[in-house]
């Protein structure tokens, strides 16, 4: 269609710190699976695990 916007789905990973419980949203990277230990928390010295993986539609 001439006037329809192009839609792209962007995948995101939400990490949750097991210590301070803060959430951090980043781009999904291959190998991410739910509930897996992910990285160090950027707010405290805790470890984060993957709470959610989802897609958001971007219209251009």
């Amino acid at each position, binding site marked *: 269609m001439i006037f329809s916007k192009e839609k792209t789905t962007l995948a995101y990973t939400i990490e949750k710190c097991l210590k301070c419980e803060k959430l951090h949203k980043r781009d*999904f990277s*291959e190998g991410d699976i739910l*509930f*897996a230990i992910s990285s160090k928390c950027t707010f405290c010295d805790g470890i984060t695990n993957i709470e*959610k993986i*989802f*897609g958001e539609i971007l219209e251009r």
Partner: protein
Amino acid sequence: MFSMGDDTNPLMMLIWILPIILFVFYGQQIQLLVTSGEIKKGIKKLNGFRVNSKKELIDYVKKNIDSTVDPTQKIEQFLDYFTIMPVDMDPNGIVEKVRHTVRSREDYTRNHVKSLSPKLNEIELSRIQTLLEIASSLQMIHKIVNHMFLTAKKQKNYPLILPVQMILPFLMEHAKAMDAAIPAFKTGQPLGDGIGPMVVGKMMLDVEKEIISFQTVLAKIDYKGRKLFLLKAEGPASTVGRPDDALQKIVHDNKIDAVIMIDAALKMEGEDSASVARGFGAAIGGIGTEKFQIEHIATQNNIPIFSIVIKQSVKEAITLMTKEIADQADNVRSQVYEMILENTLEGQSVVIIGVGNTSGVPQ
């Protein structure tokens, strides 16, 4: 004689009568021509999906198998494999026959995908098998629509093209969804259909688990005096497991007082996506053999089945989980606990089944 204001002007009469005559004698052919244009566009799109899914599958296999042999020819053979469903003139025992046929096909595909590279791990194997199913389904849809269209054109039979025109939008919706699902399966992302396994998978974390039936995991936990048997497909592979076989084993060894099933359900037009609804009866899709088996076990043992469904469209169910669906996971989990307390007493046992494809969802 040719004055413009005259109602009996023969030229004007001709202009009116000619199209009427044309439509009376050639109406069907004109309609066939117009409809053909629309269907041709649809078939072109379906062919695009078919070609793309095959290309994606071959690329994925080549990238992930440890073999020097080109797998293209073998994959093309798999794509043309068909399944002949058992005859149902005598419906007695038809479910067993269908289950046998479907499982034989699954086993066959798994073994032959494995033969591409014996070193293939279970997760890669399940992904290839799913991509193969997608490519094979898209090939079949294209083949059938094309056949119906060409037959109608060959016979110059307008009524024959009507069913194609009616069913095409629905087929296109499914085909588009399958085409959009390919990236999620390739990268092992959770799907909308994975909301059930996601809810139960989180309840299973840090608990000892066992494989109870093919690609199906069981964990046992206690909750406010109740014994919970948690069931889901074995993630993060792309599989739905065999919850019916698992339930059979659990019921054989234990006295079960209730079954709660959590699954994605197709939303009706106008319904909000990711809305949660509670109900009664077995919430499980597929060809129907698993649903039949679960209902049979429940009826034989007088076990009530409760269900919680998360509404979504066809596309949402088989593509990367949307934020709205993912955000419902905690709500659904608390509704499961609420349902357990509402419908069971202390000392009773409940089976909780997270139904759906568990791609990207471990436990």
